[in-house]
């Protein structure tokens, strides 16, 4: 069967089980778009900016537990994807990004819309390819998907010169992928796991620290089971929220810079830390020398480079989180450590003391809307079951603190890179993946403007996303730092000149609602969530509300500013 490169591309994407891709056409990919128009089975969502395509693919990948795909043209189309790719790279999200390229013969000649995107994205992709012959195209696409989803997942870029996608060639089904240079370790070392079981049975003050790796390896069930059978409290990084039920009594809340007091104090005083799928980011550890000083640290991660990178650990375990946790549970059952629920009452009561000493709190007001209150009400009205995407800054932290995620894959945020403008396109991707779920983007007035054009994507493609804007007319998180550490010099953080978000929503054909009083919050939220189609709900919130608790950058995580 003879196929063009473009047809091979579509065939191979479908073969990976992908039903929707996000993209934006241009000269170098016009043949691919022509082929897309002449096929059925692969849906294309037209975004309004290439960055949006990659974030949407990211949201899709996370909500769908699969690989997200973006397709863009050469030159500026390709460079516009870089932020999205770098974000997915930091958060280990499996993506395959296809970029157009000028014809092979023109590469290197500074042709129109030519850019060395493979060179540009080398440090922010898991791997990338420039396809130089159409015979290799099918195989490279298969390998790209394999690399994106296996081991520690990540984004893979495939650069497609125009002549390659135009060429007609006899299609050959690519064989199995086997790379001599890439063999991720899934199966953990049993000797190490035995040590963990021993440590668990002896520990007096253990803590489990879950990260994004638990969600990526779909190991929440095992993690929850282990925590409950061994009576170990659980904390999580921003990326790990939802890995353990937020409503469970063993839940400590998030740790780190804006973690709960009890989570950070538990880390400071634990004698055993089981860290699963984490990389000990500086926003988690604060001052490294004061991080879990008295603990034996077990670290489970599929990526050996994550181990001993920032923190020295005593029991390193390279392997898949799910496989490791499963095996630990199995070993504990074998050794009759089945029920440790009676153990460690002292430790748990100490944690309760920390909780009552400094619970997550804010001062309620009857005059002005508190942003935390909006998230609390959103949590209530959606029964804690919505998929929440966020932008970056205060909105992200309040969503993380006050929406108590019970399930994995429900909190979708740009954790590592911290991309403002992530939430709206990511919500679009998540909604495409889970059309029956309520999907809400929690945004700030600053960050929503960074990819506001994607409102048109949502409206056009009838993607029913809800946007909650916590409008404080500031770049709130930077303002908070300026208040605390820069003598209140609010340099370039005042955002009083903003569009009318209600009119803006209407201009795009969406619904806009505004709320200015605390007693209207529930009503506006309920109305917005019930309204069909894309809805912006703007909440005019307390201008100078800050995110607490807070660990000043570089400080010990047990020394928190509480209010």
């Amino acid at each position: 069967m003879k196929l063009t490169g473009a047809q091979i591309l579509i065939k191979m994407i479908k073969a990976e089980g992908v039903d929707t891709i996000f993209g934006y056409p241009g000269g170098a990919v016009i043949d691919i778009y022509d082929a897309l128009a002449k096929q059925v089975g692969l849906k294309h969502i037209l975004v309004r900016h290439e960055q949006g395509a990659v974030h949407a693919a990211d949201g899709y990948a996370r909500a769908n537990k699969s690989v997200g795909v973006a397709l863009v043209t050469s030159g500026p189309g390709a460079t516009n994807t870089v932020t999205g790719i770098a974000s997915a790279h930091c958060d280990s999200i499996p993506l395959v990004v296809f970029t157009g390229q000028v014809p092979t013969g023109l590469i290197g000649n500074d042709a129109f819309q030519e850019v060395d995107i493979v060179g540009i994205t080398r440090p922010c992709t898991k791997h990338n390819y420039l396809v130089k012959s159409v015979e290799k195209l099918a195989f490279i696409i298969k390998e790209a998907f394999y690399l994106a989803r296996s081991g520690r997942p990540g984004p893979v870029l495939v650069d497609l010169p125009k002549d390659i996608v135009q060429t007609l060639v006899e299609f050959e089904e690519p064989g199995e992928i086997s790379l001599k240079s890439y063999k991720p370790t899934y199966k953990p070392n049993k000797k190490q796991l035995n040590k963990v079981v021993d440590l668990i049975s002896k520990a007096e003050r253990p803590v489990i620290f879950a990260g994004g790796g638990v969600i990526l390896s779909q190991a929440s069930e095992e993690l929850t089971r282990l925590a409950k059978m061994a009576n170990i409290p659980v904390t999580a990084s921003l990326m790990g929220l939802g890995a353990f039920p937020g409503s469970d009594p063993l839940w400590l809340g998030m740790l780190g810079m804006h973690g709960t007091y009890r989570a950070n104090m538990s880390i400071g005083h634990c004698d055993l830390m089981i860290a699963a799928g984490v990389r000990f980011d500086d926003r988690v550890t604060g001052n490294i020398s004061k991080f879990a000083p008295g603990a034996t640290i077990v670290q489970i991660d599929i990526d050996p480079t994550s181990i001993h990178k920032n923190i020295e650990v005593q029991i390193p375990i390279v392997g898949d989180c799910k496989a490791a946790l499963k095996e630990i549970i199995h070993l504990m059952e074998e050794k009759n450590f089945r029920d440790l629920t009676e153990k460690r009452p002292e430790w748990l009561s100490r944690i309760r003391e920390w909780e009552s000493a400094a619970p997550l709190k804010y001062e309620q007001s009857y005059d002005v809307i508190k942003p935390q209150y909006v998230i609390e009400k959103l949590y209530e009205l959606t029964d804690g079951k919505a998929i929440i995407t966020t932008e970056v800054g205060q909105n992200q932290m309040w969503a993380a603190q006050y929406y108590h995620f019970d399930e994995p894959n429900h909190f979708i945020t740009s954790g590592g890179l911290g991309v403002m403008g992530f939430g709206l396109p990511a919500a679009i991707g998540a909604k495409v993946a889970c059309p029956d779920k309520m999907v809400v983007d929690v945004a700030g007035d600053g960050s929503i403007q960074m990819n506001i054009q994607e409102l048109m994507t949502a409206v056009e493609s009838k993607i029913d996303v809800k946007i909650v804007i916590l409008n404080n007319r500031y770049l709130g998180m930077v303002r908070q730092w300026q208040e605390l550490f820069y003598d209140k010099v609010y340099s370039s953080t005042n955002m009083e000149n903003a569009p009318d978000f209600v009119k803006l929503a209407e201009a795009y054909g969406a619904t806009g609602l505004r709320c200015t009083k605390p007693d209207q919050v529930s009503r506006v939220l309920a109305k917005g969530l019930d309204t069909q189609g894309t809805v912006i709900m703007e909440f005019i919130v307390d201008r100078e509300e800050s995110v607490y608790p807070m660990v000043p950058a570089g400080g010990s995580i047990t020394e928190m500013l509480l209010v």
Partner: protein
Amino acid sequence: MKTNRYLLSILVDDEPGVLSRIAGLFSGRGFNIDSLSVASTAEPNVSRITMVTKCEPQIIEQIKKQLHKLINVITVNDLTDKKYVQRQLALIKVNAQPDKKAEILRIVDIFRCRIVDVGLFHYIIEVSGDTEKHDAIVSLLKPMGIIEIASTGAIALARENGKY
């Protein structure tokens, strides 16, 4: 912190961009490269990169793991604590005034080097050996007036019978 010298022998896919991936990894993460030499091997599509780097002991672990994480890197072998043969090739152009010629020839003889080019007032000397030998001959030739040096990075093979 104490820094050590490490010698890594890295087998990679012989593909465009591989060197750039490795160089980018080092610059992006702030590791340093002392010397680097790249050439094909007996196996088709496989190249060997021999690299010398100076760093702290815990950094070398990260370097090795990060290198291994690159998809095109097949194996990373740390030869530092193994028995290995190491060579480095240099061409040294040295001033050869008539009154110094005999002395230069004596040094060349002692170090078992070769003279590969002779002019009225210069020699080009070919030196092959480990880093210490290079440093020694350079320091002896310096007083004669070294005009210029071209040198390769170190290359090395483990002494054991087997592939590394």
